[in-house]
């Protein structure tokens, strides 16, 4: 795994480094938080993630991992402080009509149709997952992190990532089974 800091010629203690990090990752972190808590919250909390990162910069060890999972780990902690609003958001999604469900890209039509049809069920299933399973699921789906990166972000073994993700997927498959046109059973 490449250590991204090596490409940044700035010291970890340099505030400039955090504006560089912000410019590079703010949009990704915003997307992750917005997906879990909604856009309004993401507008406020994205900068918080970088400020927390700055305060905790001593805990970042470039030898142990990359910047990206470190930031996503902090973002996940920030999200967990707003667990209630995540719950509210998921409950609102239970009730959402199919047209509102998503605005995906053409190349994911099958996934979009499935998401639209299954939206409320899916939200209910995700709400039924444990916090730990939800973290793994959203870091993978919204952050696009690999097993290894999720493990770094959450400070757990990558085997644990695998088992949590598998359980999450199993739950989702259960509710998608009946409505997913791309799936036979």
């Amino acid at each position, binding site marked *: 795994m490449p250590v991204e800091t090596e490409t940044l010629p700035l010291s970890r*203690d*340099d*505030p*400039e480094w*955090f*504006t560089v990090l*912000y*410019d590079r990752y*703010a*949009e990704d972190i*915003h*997307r992750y938080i*917005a*997906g*879990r808590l*909604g*856009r309004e919250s*993401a*507008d406020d909390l*994205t*900068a918080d993630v*970088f*400020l927390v990162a*700055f305060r905790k910069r001593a805990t970042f060890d470039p030898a142990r991992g990359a910047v990206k999972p470190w930031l996503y780990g902090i973002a996940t902690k920030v999200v967990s402080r707003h667990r209630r609003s995540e719950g509210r958001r998921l409950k609102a*999604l239970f009730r959402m009509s199919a047209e509102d*469900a*998503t*605005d*995906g890209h053409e190349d*994911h039509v099958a*996934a*979009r149709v*499935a*998401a639209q049809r*299954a*939206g409320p069920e*899916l*939200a209910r299933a*995700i709400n039924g997952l444990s916090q730990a399973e939800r973290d793994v*699921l*959203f870091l*993978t*789906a*919204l952050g696009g992190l690999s097993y290894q990166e999720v493990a770094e972000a959450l400070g757990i073994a990558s085997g644990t990532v695998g088992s949590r993700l598998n359980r*999450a*997927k199993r739950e*989702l*498959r259960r509710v*998608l089974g009946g409505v*997913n046109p*791309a*799936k036979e059973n």
Partner: protein
Amino acid sequence: MEEIEIVKQMFTEPKPSPSVLAVGRERVVRGTRGRTRRRAAPFWAAGVALGAAAATVAVVTVGSGGSGAPTTRSAIRLSAAQEVLAGAARNAERQAALNPQPSQWVYYRLVGYDPKRQDHVYKYEGWERLDARQDASRIEGRIVVHGPRNPGPEVYTPLGAWRRLAGLPTEPRKMLAALRDQPGLSPDDADSPDERAFANAGELLWNSPLGAPPKVQSALYRALGTLPGIRVDKSPDAVGEPAVGLSLPHTQEILFDPRTYQYLGARVVSDGVQKKRPQPPAGLSATKRKAWEQQGANYRVPPAGTLVSSQLRTLVKLVDKPGNR
């Protein structure tokens, strides 16, 4: 990974707007700077005169260059526009708080440029009642008061604009949202929400010779500082006063004194874009319609970069009656 893809589809929100990201960036810059300066101070306090002035806001000496490694290490990169606006915010904070009343007057000196006048550059001094019902000027040594008259829309009166500004929220994102939505002001060229906020800010500042309560005025400048893409025009003003102008693509320039960062006025520079003429009103006779179309053909937009007009208030004072200065 199909379940993952479906979750991604369902939960992905649209990208944040540039101004949201810029507000966050400003917070990160502010939040990270304070701490490190304290840590760094003993390090190089000897060589660099990091006095109280530099310690308040991040202007420091970015861009003026040549002051060696310590400055470039500690300074946050502010754009040239942010430097001007940070300076303007500090200047605004230092102004006295006013409590203007409708029956009071504002005395002002104005320098303007207008190519349609016989003398392109003109100077003027006068008084205006804060409710805009009367104004006054000095004619052959005597103070002549004009009015009373209908003051027109409130947001174009000195006190109306002052009050509109005074009511703005000071949190940057809320400030920008409020500036975007200003009833009664019509920046018709503004192309985007950011441009609308900037244009409305310029208009309110011009309409209010007394500015705004110091807290609001400095918050307004800081909020503008979070907008991406502000251009800085340092060319000397046609009226002969030094001025630095800030603008977004389809807005007027807001002018500041380059030394004190005091607000000065507004400048219009042509963008060279021929505006689309509105459709002729319905029901015109054939002759009138033809006249309408020809009028359009005669209308020429000056080439891009041409100065269209410039107005600077070089002195403004709250007084109790006309004649006072």
